[in-house]
């Protein structure tokens, strides 16, 4: 037996579980309608769950991206101060964040797909709820005909199959959210523990070294200017006239 027939059997088995063995077929119409309403609620809750999960991933991705951007900027600053070693370190740390970002993007796509599908399922079910409400009353009114009994059976089976399908869609989305939540939890812990944030903390080691380089180079400049003044007695950059009052670094008036 092929996959399609076997799938049909599986859906049928799920459907049969849902079908109420009501004495009166008219009663089964009302019960099916109740199930349909509950089903719709379940799908709507699932849409909300998926949306929440998606937002959580977006938040994490924003945090990680911010850290990556900061490391990129630090690499630039380091190069500006001729500290290639520091730039290399910053870029290496940024590269280490890439797989995490890529993973988040994949998760985001998966969850967004589930969201789109569930919204369609929810809309279809809503249409069915509205149509079934009218149809069941019509069927109940014409119930006396033997033909109507068969029609009720068909309609109830059809609607149950739709609910079976919707149930499988919800289960599938839930499975995806569950596995994603576990990974998202691990990522949250990682972000909170500082294992990632320490890298780009304002007082992190790269930043501290960059700040130090910057401070050292200012001192070096000033030292050089002073040495030039004292050493030659007539430093070129300070001016040709002897006996003049010493000037500050960079030629600014004292």
């Amino acid at each position, binding site marked *: *037996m*092929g*996959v*399609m*027939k*076997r*799938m*049909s*059997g*599986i*859906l*049928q*088995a*799920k459907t049969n579980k849902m079908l109420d063995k009501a004495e009166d077929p008219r009663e089964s119409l009302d019960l099916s309608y109740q199930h349909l309403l509950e089903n719709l609620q379940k799908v709507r809750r699932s849409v909300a769950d998926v949306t929440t999960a998606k937002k959580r991933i977006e938040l994490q991705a924003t945090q990680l991206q911010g850290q990556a951007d900061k490391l990129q900027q630090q690499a630039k600053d380091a190069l500006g101060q001729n500290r290639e070693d520091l730039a290399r370190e910053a870029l290496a740390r940024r590269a280490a964040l890439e797989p995490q970002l890529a993973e988040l993007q994949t998760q985001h796509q998966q969850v967004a*797909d589930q969201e789109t*599908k569930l919204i*369609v*399922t929810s809309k*279809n*079910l809503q*249409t*069915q709820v*509205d*149509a*079934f409400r009218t*149809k069941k009353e019509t069927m109940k009114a014409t119930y006396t005909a033997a033909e109507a009994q068969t029609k009720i059976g*068909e*309609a109830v*089976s*059809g*609607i149950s*199959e*739709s609910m079976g*399908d919707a149930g*499988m*869609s919800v289960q*599938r989305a839930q499975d995806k959210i569950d596995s994603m939540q576990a990974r998202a939890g691990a990522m949250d812990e990682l972000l909170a523990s500082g294992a990632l944030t320490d890298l780009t903390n304002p007082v992190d080691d790269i930043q501290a070294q960059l700040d130090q380089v910057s401070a050292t180079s200012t001192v070096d400049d000033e030292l050089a200017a002073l040495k030039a003044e004292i050493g030659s007695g007539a430093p070129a950059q300070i001016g040709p006239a002897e006996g003049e009052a010493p000037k500050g670094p960079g030629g600014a008036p004292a």
Partner: protein
Amino acid sequence: MIVRILGEAQFDVADTDKSTLDNLEHALNAAVEGHDETAFASALASLIDAVRRTGTPLAPDSFTSSDLVVPFSDATLDETKALLEEPGGERT
């Protein structure tokens, strides 16, 4: 015959198009049996494409049972195999 694509919709496919679906389903069956992930993805995509192309979508309020059911369009091989082990999915 009525064909349902899980998570999407039902389609009314003419009996004259059944052989087309049968051929595509053979490829899907073989991919499942041979546990070939790549072949499975392409066979499933072709089958779903054929159902959409040859079938007429049923309105969501038609309340009809399906003769055949196609897995979710983005189903993985592992997921499908697990599903086929559920009650009602027996081979015979």
